[in-house]
C-alpha cells in the first residue's frame, strides 16, 4: 500500500511539474496497475456470475470465493440449487481440484490449455490467471484518453492466444477501465470492462463484463461482501477444506 501511495504521489508530482502524460513510462503504469489489482494479501467475498447469450437470455450462478495471494483460489457454488456445493480449488502450476457433493469425492484436473474457457464463462484460464500483467506482457504507451492512459500490451510468450491487448488504465487510481483482446489476425475478439470501487485501502473490481465478440456472448462477474486481509492461511486452500 505504501507503494501505491508513493506512486500516486509521484504521479501528482509529475503532473504538477507539468510533465505531459505521454511522458509516462508505460512500464510504470502497468506495474502500478498490477499493484492495484494484486496487492491484497487475501480476499473473501461473494461472486455472482451472469452468463448472457446472444438473445439476451441470462443464466446466473452464485458462489463464495476465497483468494490468497495471486495463485490460490477457492470457489464454492451456492446457486443454482442443482449445482450447489460444487467447489473448485485452484492451486499454483495450473492444478485445479473439483469437488462434487453428489459424488462425495474430488477430482484433480490439470490443464495446460490456457485458451480453454473457465467453467463455461467467457473468461479463458489465461484471463483468470492472477499473474501480474507486467510479467506476461511488454507494454507500449499509446495515448491519453479521457480519464486514463491507453497501453498496448504485447505478450512475452509466443504461446499466448492473443497478438496484443489494448488496455486503458485510470490516470490516478491505476485500475483498468477496459481491456481489448486481439487475436493473431489482429481482429478484436474480446472486450472486458471493469468497474472498481474502493473498499478500505484497496480498489475492488466489483464488476467485470467480458464480451466474446465472435460468439456475441457475455459474462458478468459481480463481487459483493468483499473483505480484505482477513488472515487466510494456506490451510484454507487444501483438498480437505474443499470437501467441507
Amino acid at each position, binding site marked *: 500500500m505504501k507503494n501505491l501511495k508513493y506512486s500516486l504521489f509521484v504521479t501528482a508530482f509529475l503532473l504538477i511539474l507539468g510533465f505531459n502524460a505521454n511522458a509516462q513510462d508505460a512500464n510504470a503504469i502497468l506495474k502500478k496497475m498490477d499493484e492495484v489489482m494484486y496487492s491484497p494479501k487475501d480476499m473473501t467475498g461473494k461472486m455472482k456470475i451472469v452468463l448472457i447469450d446472444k438473445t439476451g*437470455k441470462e443464466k446466473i450462478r452464485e458462489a463464495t470465493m476465497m483468494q490468497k495471494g495471486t495463485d490460490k483460489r477457492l470457489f464454492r457454488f451456492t446457486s443454482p440449487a*442443482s*449445482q450447489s456445493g460444487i467447489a473448485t480449488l485452484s492451486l499454483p502450476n495450473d492444478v485445479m481440484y473439483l469437488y462434487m457433493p*453428489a459424488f462425495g469425492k474430488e477430482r484433480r*484436473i490439470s490443464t495446460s490449455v490456457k485458451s480453454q474457457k473457465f467453467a463455461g*464463462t467467457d473468461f479463458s484460464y489465461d484471463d483468470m490467471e492472477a499473474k501480474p500483467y507486467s510479467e506476461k506482457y511488454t507494454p507500449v504507451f499509446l495515448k491519453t484518453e479521457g480519464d486514463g492512459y491507453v497501453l498496448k500490451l504485447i505478450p512475452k510468450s*509466443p504461446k499466448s492466444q492473443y497478438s496484443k491487448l489494448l488496455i486503458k488504465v485510470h490516470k490516478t487510481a491505476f485500475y483498468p477501465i477496459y481491456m481489448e483482446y486481439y487475436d*493473431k489476425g489482429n481482429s478484436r475478439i474480446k472486450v472486458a470492462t471493469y468497474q472498481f470501487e474502493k473498499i478500505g485501502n484497496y480498489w475492488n473490481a466489483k464488476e467485470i463484463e467480458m464480451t466474446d465478440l*465472435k460468439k456475441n456472448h457475455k459474462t458478468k462477474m459481480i463481487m459483493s461482501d468483499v473483505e480484505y486481509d482477513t488472515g487466510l492461511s494456506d490451510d484454507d486452500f487444501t483438498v480437505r477444506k474443499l470437501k467441507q
Partner: protein
Amino acid sequence: MKKLAEAIVRLRWPIVVVVLVLTIFFGFQIKDIRLNSDIISSLPDDDSISVLFKDVGKKYGGNTMGMIVLQSDSIFSKPVLEDIRQITDTLKIMQGVSTVTSLTNIIDIKGSEGGIEIGQLVDEYDLPDTKAKLDALKRKVFSKDMYKGTIVSKDGTSTLIMFTLQEGADQQVVAKAIKDKILALHLPEKLYFGGLPMIMNDIAGLMMTDLRYLLPITFLIIAFILLISFQSVRGVLLPLLSSGIAIVWVLGLMQLLGYELTLVSDNIPIILLAIGSAYTIHVVNQINECKERDRRKALIIALAYIITPVFLSGITTIFGFTSFIFGAYLTIIRDFGIFTSLGVLFALIMSVVFVPALISVFSIYRNPEKLKKIKTSENTLMGKFLLLPLSNITLKNPILISYFWIILIIMSIVGIFNIKTSVNMADYFRKNNPMRVSEDIMQKQFGGSQPVFVVFKGDMQSPGVLKTMIKTENFMKENPKIDNTQSVADLIEEMNDIMGEGKRIPDEKNKIEQLWFLLDGQDIMPQLVSDNLDEGVIQSRFASYDTEEMEDFVTSMNRFIKENNTKDCRIELTGIPSVYVKLNHSLINSQYRSLTIAIILVIFIVSVILRSFLKGIYAALPIIATIIILFGFMGFSGISLNVATVLVASVALGMGIDYSIHMITHLTYMLKETGDVDASIKNTMMVSGKAIIINVVSVAAGFIVLMFSHIAPIQDFGLLVALSMIFSGFGALTLLPVIWILAYRKKNIRAN
C-alpha cells in the same frame, strides 16, 4: 386471327417502344440477381423430415461445418505438421470462422490417478521433430477412436481440419475467402475442401462458369444453324433477339420478385434460347413462304395463319413446364417450372407480336424481287436428300415403319426397368472434380460426410432419456455405414468416468446435474443440446451414397424409434439419408404425376383446338413413344433419374408436341385442300417437315452444349433433351404420317 394480325401491324410503334422500355427496365434488374446454390434451403416446408432437417441444421450448427482434407504420404512428419498448423492458424483468424479443430490444436484428455489431465495432443509451439516423437504421436493417434478415422485417416495419409462458420456470416463469401486464402499458401500437400458451405461455394462457381461459357456457345451454335437454314441475317437476328428479350424479361422478373438463380433455374437462359427461337423461326418462315407481293399484306396473311399453331405449341410447352409446379418435391424445381413457363410465354409473345411489329416498323420485308429466286423446299439439299426420301418410304412402307417403332418401343420398355434414381449431391460433380474426390476420401477414410441427426425431446438431464440416447447410438453403430456417433449422453458418460464411477450414465439425476457443471459453456454443447435442455440430438455421419443402403438404414432406424418412443422421450430421425430416401420416392412419384398431368393437358388442348379428340391422341402418340424411348435409353445407358433429368420427359413432351401440332395442322389443311392422303403427306413433309428439321437441329444443338456443363446432372439433361428432340422430330415425320395413312387410307377405302 386476321383482326389480331392487323392490330399488331397497326400498333407496331407502341409495341416496339413498350417492349424496348420493358427490356431496358428488366435488364437493369438483372445486374443484381444472385446465385443461390443452397440445396438444403430448397427442401419443402410442408414435409416433416425436411423441416426437421433444416431446423436441426440451423439449431445445432451442422450446416455451417466445413472441412479441409490434407493428403500426403504420411501425416506424421514435421513439414506436414507445420503445414497443418499453418492452415489451422490461418483459419482461426479469418473473419466469419468460429472454431477450428485440427491435429495441431485438438484437446487431449488423459485419465490420471484421481483425476484427469487436459492438454493438447500436439504442442503446436513445439511440434514433434524426431522420429521417436513422431512415432509416439502416431501410436497415440491410432490407439484412440477419438482421433483415428476422425481427425487422421485410418491409413495415416490424410487428416481433417474442421471448422465452423460464424452464425449470420455470409456462408458463400466466407467459403470462397477460405478457399482463396488456403490455396494462396501454396502448400505441397494435396488439399480438398468439403462440407456444405464449401460444396455450395463450389457449385456456385460451376454455375457461374456454365452461364459464362455455355450461354454464348449456345447462342453462336443456334445462330450458325439459323444462318445456314435461312441464309439471311434477318433469319438469324430475329429469333435470337426475341428469345434474348424473353431471357432478359424472365431474369429481371425473378430478381424483381426476390428469387435467386439456383442450380436448376440457371439453365433457364439456355433452354429459352433453344425453345424461344423456334417460335420466331416458324413466324419468319411463314412470312417468307407467303407469295403475296404486297409485303404488308403478306405479313398479315402469314401472321393470321401462323398465330394459331405457334400459340398452340407455345401453350403446350408451357403446360409441359407447369406440370413441375404440381409434381415437384424440391422448391428449386417448382420455381424452375414457373419461370421457364413464364419465359416461354414471353418468347411466344415476342414471336407473334414483337417480331411482326418490328418487321413492319423497319420495313425489313424480304425484297419481293428476291422471292422468285428462293428455292422451293423440294430443290434444297434437305428436301432432296432427306425430306423426299423420308416421305417416299413412309408412303410406300407404312407397315415397315410402324414395326420399326414398335420394336424400338418394346426394347425401350425393357430398359425402363433398369432405370436408377440418384439424389446424391456428390453426383453433381464430374468424376475428377476435387469436390467429388474429397467426398470419396471422406467416405472411405473418415466415415462419410452425410449428416444424420436423431432428435430427442424430453428432459436432457434425466437418466432415462440419456440411457435411451446411448441405446440408440449403440443400435446405430450396428450399421456398417455408421462409424461414430456423438451426443451429450457420451459426454456425461465420460464425465462420470472422470468422477471415478465408470463410463456409464449415473442412475441419479442430481449426479447428472452436477456433471453438467463441467459441460456448461463448452463449445460443443450448443451442437448437442438446446438451450433450455428440453431437446438433444445425436449427431452422426453416414458413409454411403447407395440409395438401397440409405433406405435400409432409415427403415431399421424408424422401426427402432417406434419401439423406443415414449411420452417422456420422443425420438425423431432426420438427416441426409432420410431426406434422400424421401426425395428419391418423390422423384419417381413426381415424375409420374407431372407426366400424367402434362399428357392429359396436352391431349385436351390439342383436341379442343383441332376440334377432334382423335387428333389429340394422334399428336400425343409420337411424344409418348419418345418418352418411352427416352426412359429406355436412360435404363440402358445408366443415366439416372435425378433432380435435373427428372425434368427431361416433361420438357420433351412440351417441345415435342409442337412438331405433332404443326404436322397435324398442316395435314388437316392439305387433306381438305387436295382430298388426297398421300398428297397431303408429301406437301406437309416438304413445308412443315423442313421447319421441324431446322428446329430439331437448332434445339438439339442448343441442348448438346449443356453436355459441356460442369454440373454432371446438367450434362445428362442436355444429352437427353437433345435425344428426345431428335426422336420426337423423327416421330412426327414418320410415325405420325404412318398413323395418318393407316387412319385415313382405311376411311378412304371404306368411303370408296
